């Protein structure tokens, strides 16, 4: 499953990131690394961008970039 496919309020854990894109290095600097837990917080009115919460911070990014992050759902 990819990060952009998550529904609002669902939590997941990052399994892999496609680091061949420069954006992902910046995401990594924010601490978005394999093993990190992430929650989908908001989806903007037109469905893009999205806001995710992890490690006590809220970051917004576009779906295109979120699609580079593979995740697995955490059972609630």
């Amino acid at each position: 499953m990819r990060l952009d496919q998550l529904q609002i309020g669902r939590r997941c854990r990052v399994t892999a990131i496609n680091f061949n894109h420069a954006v992902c290095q910046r995401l990594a600097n924010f601490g978005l690394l394999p093993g990190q837990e992430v929650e989908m917080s908001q989806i903007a009115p037109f469905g893009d961008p999205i806001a995710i919460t992890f490690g006590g911070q809220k970051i917004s990014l576009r779906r295109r970039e979120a699609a580079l992050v593979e995740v697995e759902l955490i059972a609630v």
Partner: protein
Amino acid sequence: MTTTIASPPAQQTKQIALIGNPNTGKTSLFNCLTGMRQRVGNYPGVTVEKKLGTVYLAQGPATLIDLPGAYSLAASSLDERVAVDVLSGHLPGMERPDAVVCVVDATNLKRNLFLAMQIAELGIPMVIALNLWDSLEARGQTIDVDELEKRLGVPVVATVARKSTGVSELREAISNAIQQERCIAPMIWPEEVDEAVKEIQIAAKGHTTVALTELEVRRMLFDAGSAVMRRVESQHETVRNAVQIGREKLRKLGLNPMAAEAVLCYKHLEKLLEGIVKQAGEAKGEKSESIDKLMLHRIGGLTIFGVLMYVVFQAVYSWAGPLMDLIDVAKGAVQGVVGGWLEPWPILGSLVTDGIIEGVGAFVIFLPQILILFFFISLLEDTGYMARAAFLMDRLFGWCGLNGKSFVPMLSSYACAIPGILATRTIEDPKARMVTILVAPLMSCSARLPVYVLLIGAFVEPRYGVRIAGLALFAMHLLGLAIAIPAAWLLTKYVVKTKPQPFLLELPPYRVPRMQDVLYRMWQAGKEFIGRAGTIILAITIIVWALLYFPRPVELEAQVTEQFTAQQIAANDGHADLVEAELADPDSALSVELGNKIDSAYTNQSYMARIGKTIQPVFELAGFDWKITVGVVASFPAREVIISTLGVIYSLGGDVDEDSPDLKTTLANAKWPDGPHAGQPIFTLAVAFSIMVFFALCQQCGATVAVIAKELGWRWAMASFVSMTAMAWIGSVLVYQIGTALGF
């Protein structure tokens, strides 16, 4: 001229840099430490240039440098680059700082210390300020400061910049840091990394002017588009190969080179921070999160955004009334008194009352609107809603090639395009930045506000009421944005050609704005506004007055009087004695009418009228008469000038009726003296909107043109000027022609 003696190396004054992630309170701390008042705001990208101040330490005064925030030393935008360059000593004219204060958001230790670990490698003595300590406590958490200090090996001070808590401890810690030179224990890298670094260093030997430090080499190894790489890469194949080999080594370790640094560093920090953050009290639910649930709701979010903006402009429009009346009364009183004193000197009297007081006064009347507007702007910036607005609007910008990050500078441009243009330095892609700079002046800055309020007050409100008037003001402010989006699309597609930009923006927690910050911002804006009234507006007003007053041929008065008297006698069946008797009384209706005729005759043959009438055909299609034309042309250096110019024109021109207490009513009563529309009002609704559209779209601000020239070069500045002027002309012609055809 004597040559100045080269100053001795700056050893006496120590340099201390403030660095940290964006929005951690660096500028707030800077203000606490230096007693200065640089602007703070609750969104990333408020500080985009380095700012210097003086801090008094135990050793004496030292220079404190406030830097733009950065998330990592792999700087991707211009403002981050400034921070990195200052720290590494690569900024021309700046020494490497003697110590850094790393400002850390106590609620997000790990990410903030990631940057601290990178800086540690520079080997500069460091102090860590754990700022936003109050937010940490509000979450029911605490940090073991002593333990953290022990593990990091540098002084750690808890601070609350907003309340100036911990500032003296911080000052003390800085003093000590300079003496003791304590640095964070740098990370221990896996052997493979160290090996790769050595190999690259060897490969680069002789190829660079200065041998590369380990740190610089690591940046080359880890960063895709490293600034260090750019300094050496182009010339040297060998270096590039060595970097490739090094990256291979990392891959064999199972690490992607692009992520290696983050992975290793976060692992290191994980261990370092174990047990440091403690849950002391009850964990409270995140307030920000529940506010966001509403503010960023998929349907509700946009509605709230729209309603908020509408309320802002409605308030700007309707709250100011009483204050404006007060200023107007004061203006009238001053005019009366000063006019009395200057009675014996008619020319000087006219300069002061019709020129200076009338012109500058017409402008100053709009001070209340400016204050109200800045009140709201400052709320918007300090609460943290700014970044949310960017989030909501991103999609609207996405299709034109820009992203929500461009929206932050564009929103700032509603106050003034210049800080807006400077704020574009947070945009990573140079081309996207260029497009944003070019469209930012289309946002309706506060200087346009008086023009809108004047014309809407004169022509929309009397007909349609306050509510519609507020809506019209809102619409005028939206117009620039509505034009900017397709303009950006054209630019990105055909002129500058940018790829779609990624959009990464931190949404900071909501904070309650500090009243003193809000008031200070309003005070600053008010001071600036009055300052302009007393300088550039005053100067242009004086010139406009002179051009309208001169030449003054004496015979003109006699001529007009003779003509007028003859006309009146004819109209009164030849009773010359009656007419003359009435004219002898200076207060009679006839005398007043004659006086107005004389004034009008003089104005109509003034230099300004001649210039205006020459240029007027250009604006014929937009419905402007020569007076509006003059106002528009005089406004090219600064758009607010139109207000003072119209004030002077109508005050000198003798068109002021008895029942025209202010400029608004005077405009509403102005009529064409001759030509095809003789006798009809000059200002129809179509003309009023034609003027407003012209001002909305035109680049009438010398200072903005100069700043664009500084950021992008004179060619782009001229291009921006010419295209915006053309757009303004076309827009106003369309509005006038269509409006007139529809009967407005």
